[in-house]
């Protein structure tokens, strides 16, 4: 059914901490690794060793520069996969019912048996989370590792998405964002987690945590201990350097 479920018992999703992510691409690689033999297998590559390789990836890491008066310039690594939206346009536009959102946990999936590969769902997703598999002729996407998080053949501690378990920095958390008592919900509250492109009205489940404010006090203390001068602040030092470079 391409209508959205009336109610959602759970809202499983990811929280991505932009303060922690170091842009190592490990989550993207492990996502490919897990999923190429999972629910949506195989994730085809075209011309993988040639001049112009492309392929199906459910998770990609972009990088942006964020500048501000107070914090100066910062490089922000920005992983992006399906946000398992509550009001998912990719579900309602689907003409076949292949694209659906599960009532029990809110995961958005594609039925590979009925998808006709019209690509309309990929046009309707603001986040670029859908991946057309040219070779298979059907649409694929992040499954929230549905075949891992419920998998009873693996130890319970491993039952989290592949991207989450592999992140060496711990920048990705997984849990029920619909449950106000869950750790992940509290984390979002505490760190002012936010939605991407709220104006698109998709009500994404996944949240992003902004980089923490930089603390210049630390630099001042460090400088002071070198110069033994309490009035010698980071800004004084910056002025000296700027004057010298003129």
């Amino acid at each position, binding site marked *: 059914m391409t209508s959205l479920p009336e109610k959602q018992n759970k809202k499983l999703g990811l929280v991505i901490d932009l303060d922690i992510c170091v842009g190592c691409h490990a989550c993207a690689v492990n996502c490919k690794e897990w999923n190429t033999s999972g629910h949506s297998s195989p994730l085809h590559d075209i011309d993988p060793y040639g001049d112009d390789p492309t392929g199906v990836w459910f998770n990609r890491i972009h990088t942006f520069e964020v500048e*501000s008066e107070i914090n100066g310039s910062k490089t922000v690594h920005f992983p992006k996969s399906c946000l398992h939206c509550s009001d998912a346009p990719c579900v309602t536009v689907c003409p076949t019912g292949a694209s659906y959102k599960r009532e029990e946990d809110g995961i958005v999936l594609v039925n590979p048996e*009925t998808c*006709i590969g019209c690509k309309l769902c990929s046009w309707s997703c603001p986040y670029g989370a859908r991946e057309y598999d040219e070779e298979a002729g059907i649409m694929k996407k992040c499954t929230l590792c549905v075949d891992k998080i419920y998998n009873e053949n693996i130890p319970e501690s491993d039952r989290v998405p592949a991207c989450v378990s592999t992140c060496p920095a711990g920048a990705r958390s997984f849990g029920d964002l619909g449950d106000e008592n869950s750790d992940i919900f509290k984390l979002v509250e505490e760190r002012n987690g936010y939605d991407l492109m709220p104006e698109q009205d998709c009500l994404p489940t996944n949240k992003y945590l902004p980089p923490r404010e930089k603390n210049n006090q630390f630099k001042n203390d460090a400088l002071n201990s070198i110069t033994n001068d309490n009035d010698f602040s980071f800004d004084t030092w910056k002025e000296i350097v700027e004057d010298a470079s003129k």
Partner: protein
Amino acid sequence: MHPSKSIIFFTVMSGTGYGIIICLSFLALIAEINFSYGLKLSLILISFLFITLGLLSSTLHLGHPERAWRSFSQWRSSWLSREGLAAVLTYIPLMLFYLLWFLEMDIFKYFLYSASILSVITIYCTGQMYASLKTVPAWNNVYVTPIYLINGLSIGSLSIYCLTRFYEYEIQHLYQFTLLSLALCLMLKIIYWFHIRTKSTSSINTAIGLGKDNKVSFFEGPHTGKNFLTTEMINKIKKEKANFLRLCFIILSCVLPIYMIVQEATLIIDAFILKLSFFITLVFALIGMLIERYLFFIQAKHVVSLYYGENKV
């Protein structure tokens, strides 16, 4: 957006076929449309072929054309599903109209009217499919659906007009009707081109979400090569080229046909040359429509481009 050949061909061809049917029903409302057999047969053949070839080509871009029938199921939520359903339903009254019109049975009119209503619905669904995509601001506006309708109508009535020149046949009111729809088509498109210059509320700031007190700029993409998103959703055209193509559309699909229709009497005297020039006019107008549809896609920016270096869409 990627200008897929099969979608461009489909929307122009089917649009023309449906336009012929809609125009015929308007004419039937105000006058008798019992034409000569030759003209009837040509109209039947052309509208049927255009609609059918268009629809067939639309399945070509699917990953699994053999599953296309599944797309009739989700009409409750999906404009694409509604479009497919309406397109198939149109065939029922359409075939009956063809038959009864050819046999000169008067009840043909009722089937013509119902076929034309369903044709309008089909084009409306096509338009709405694009117009309801919030992700593509150049499509998400009130002009897109009327443009689809009026484009179909103008080229449809032009097709009938050209055929009447070919068969040396006069149809009452067709002259005014064609001129009016051609002029409307041009007007609406120009308004649309002005409209899409305004930027949407989505920007790199809302896409990354850190733009409140910061300046956000693109540093690097996820990889150095292309991917599905960049080939399907991020396509560019140079401004000069786009402007040239817009001019081509204006001349080929609007100005040239209007000029030919208005100036016909003073322009050409030789009967054969007249037939030939109207045939060429129609071919040019169709080419113009294909160009317009190409621009409709290539000039539409998708918000996902904000993750790939674009600051505004």
